């Protein structure tokens, strides 16, 4: 398949691994920021192909994982109402809050629907004028433009029975938080390709300069990832620290200007609590005042819910790159995708779930 097979080409991949082997002279720790990158690395076994000098640690870029327990509980409370049709991306449904997950709620009779495009919610809202249609608006900058557009359209067209439970998160503040952490080991980052397709990577240049870390914005296919790793290691070996672009076929330095305008018209930056990490200042989006009529949190007055995580779970350090899934005693035993204890086991793109799906809880043959 065009635009896919080229980036999974075994010969190209081997060439990049060889080049990496020739380039690396000492140990380096590189973090891939995005859950999609983690998933691809583990799925294709890339971390086992590259020289052992290069350690890959997995970042916080799984929007499903980092959505706070409180937000999931709010979603649960809203979706439980008889007058509500609750719409969500599929992989959010299995994420357990402290009162259970949305899939179980659906099984008990709540009207919970999987949508692929947020725009479907407007159609559902028009088709069900007597009911409240709520969309679970989560994600990084990648999903923000489409979510912004839906809210804007709902306001413009007077679809008053539509609202959004917004829990958007932003990548650059999370990278800064990791670098500020005293336990930080990360020496270079593979930046989030799809986030930067929207936002460009100008925001990453001051971070690279300030913390003296290479940031290579990277795609998601094996050849992309291997090339991104090689570019990061070349910078490390040469003592450079720049924001570079591996994913040039998709994104430019400035990103997608109309999408950014749309985001800023509808959302404003706010503090956001990340599951497993805590509150990071200025790390999320919420709806601007003009769009508050479509804010599900205000419409349904879901009270702040106090929650607590499992004491065993180490998803916080995993999301910060300080630990790996296999460092956790509960991994694959007490904690599995069927019964996740914490954030990183809940979505396919969470580091623990990616490890589990690829059998890393089992002993792999030599």
């Amino acid at each position, binding site marked *: *398949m065009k635009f*896919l097979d080229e980036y*999974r*080409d*075994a010969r190209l*991949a*081997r060439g990049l691994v060889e080049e990496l082997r020739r380039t690396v002279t000492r140990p380096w720790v590189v973090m891939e920021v995005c859950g*999609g990158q983690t998933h691809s690395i*583990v*799925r*294709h*076994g*890339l971390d*086992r*192909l590259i020289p052992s000098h290069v350690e890959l640690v997995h970042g916080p870029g799984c*929007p*499903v994982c980092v959505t706070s327990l409180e937000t999931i509980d709010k979603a649960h409370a809203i979706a439980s109402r008889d007058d509500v049709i609750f719409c969500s*991306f*599929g*992989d*959010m*449904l*299995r994420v357990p809050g402290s009162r259970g997950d949305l899939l179980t709620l659906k099984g008990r009779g709540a009207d919970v*629907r*999987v*949508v*692929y*495009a947020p725009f*479907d919610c407007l159609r559902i809202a028009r088709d069900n004028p007597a009911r409240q249609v709520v969309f679970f608006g*989560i*994600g*990084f900058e*990648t*999903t923000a433009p489409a979510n912004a557009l839906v809210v804007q359209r709902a306001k413009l067209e007077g679809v008053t029975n539509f609202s959004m439970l917004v829990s958007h998160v932003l990548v650059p503040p999370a990278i800064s938080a990791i670098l500020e952490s005293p336990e930080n080991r990360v020496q270079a980052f593979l930046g989030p390709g*799809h986030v930067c397709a929207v936002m460009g990577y100008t925001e990453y240049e001051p971070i690279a300069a300030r913390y003296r870390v290479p940031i290579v914005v990277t795609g998601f296919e*094996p*050849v992309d990832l291997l090339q991104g790793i090689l570019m990061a290691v070349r910078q490390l070996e040469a003592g450079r620290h720049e924001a570079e672009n591996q994913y040039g076929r998709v994104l430019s330095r400035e990103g997608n200007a109309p999408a950014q305008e749309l985001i800023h018209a509808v959302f404003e930056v706010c503090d956001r609590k990340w599951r497993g990490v805590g509150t990071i200042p200025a790390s999320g989006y919420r709806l601007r005042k003009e769009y508050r009529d479509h804010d599900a949190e205000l419409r349904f007055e879901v009270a702040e819910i106090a929650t607590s995580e499992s004491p065993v779970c180490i998803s916080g350090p995993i999301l910060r790159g300080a630990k790996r899934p296999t460092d956790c005693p509960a991994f694959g035993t007490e904690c*599995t*995708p*069927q019964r996740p204890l914490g954030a990183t086991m809940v*979505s*396919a*793109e969470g580091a623990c779930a990616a490890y*589990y*799906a*690829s*059998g*890393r809880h*089992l*002993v*792999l*043959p030599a």
Partner: protein
Amino acid sequence: MSSTPFGDCPLPILDHKQILLGHGSGGTLTSQLIESVFLPAFGNPVLDRLDDQAVVELPGGRVAFTTDSFVVTPLFFPGGDIGHLAVNGTVNDLAMSGARPLYLSAGFILEEGLAIDDLRRIALSMRDAARAAGVQIVTGDTKVVGKGSGDQVFINTSGIGLVPPGVLVSADRAQPGDAVLLSGTVGDHGMAIMASRESLGLGGTIASDTAPLHELVACMLDACRDLHVLRDPTRGGVAATLHEIAGRSGVGIEIDEGAVPVRDDVRGACEILGFDPLYVANEGKLVAFVPAAGADVVLAALRAHPLGRDAVRLGRVTDEHPRHVVLRTAVGGSRILERPYGELLPRIC
């Protein structure tokens, strides 16, 4: 002017367009449904007797017997419908023992309000599928549940078939050294269903692969009597099937990701939704475990049949890592193929 104090005496309405609870009452409406929908579709000398059971002749030998229930939304999808699935699914379950399928039963649970035209269309699909598979539907049952207690139509089919002498196919017979063959592209059925659910708006170029596989199996058995394992990878896809076989036989399985045939449109849809085609359902494919010495002839026999023309050698059985399926990735890495753990859910981005 009325001729009676109550107006014209109304005759009972017989020409209903929708299923009513009365169609399951055992009375006139039930008989009418059987005579207008089921007998015209399925009629044969055994069924036409309308006894409480079918009495059929079987030559001596080993009998394969299976049952399966079918619930699918939407009822009609590109490449087939619930009727095709209900016949082919049970035919294939029989065929995976090496059996020649002979007779099926068909039980219908209908939801009040179902359009009778839809039911007729499903019955005619079942007729066509049964003809194509060379089986007869010889007994059946119909029940009606109230609106909201079902989802339009549920169908159960049971089937019996005869296993030829000397054939012993079972999921516990995979042995180290066996070749693992796959009869064609994976993921077609699951993605056809997914794409035809309007909420995903993927359009409809992908068609289900629903097909009866017993002839293909017969061709394989002609090539090599000693097939060890046959399975049709339906729900959970090839991954779930291989997992089950590795567990039942206590062996390790190694497969090559690069060998897995996937249609471009199926692959594209899987990429968009974040699915691995190895976990997506098929309804017209089989996985075969064959002694290494017979692998080439069986592969040739598969490829000579229209339903197996895209067949591949997928991998091999090993005595290493028992009960695990290891996938060699196209770029040279490896991973353990885990068992799927629930419904496939599209991912966020």
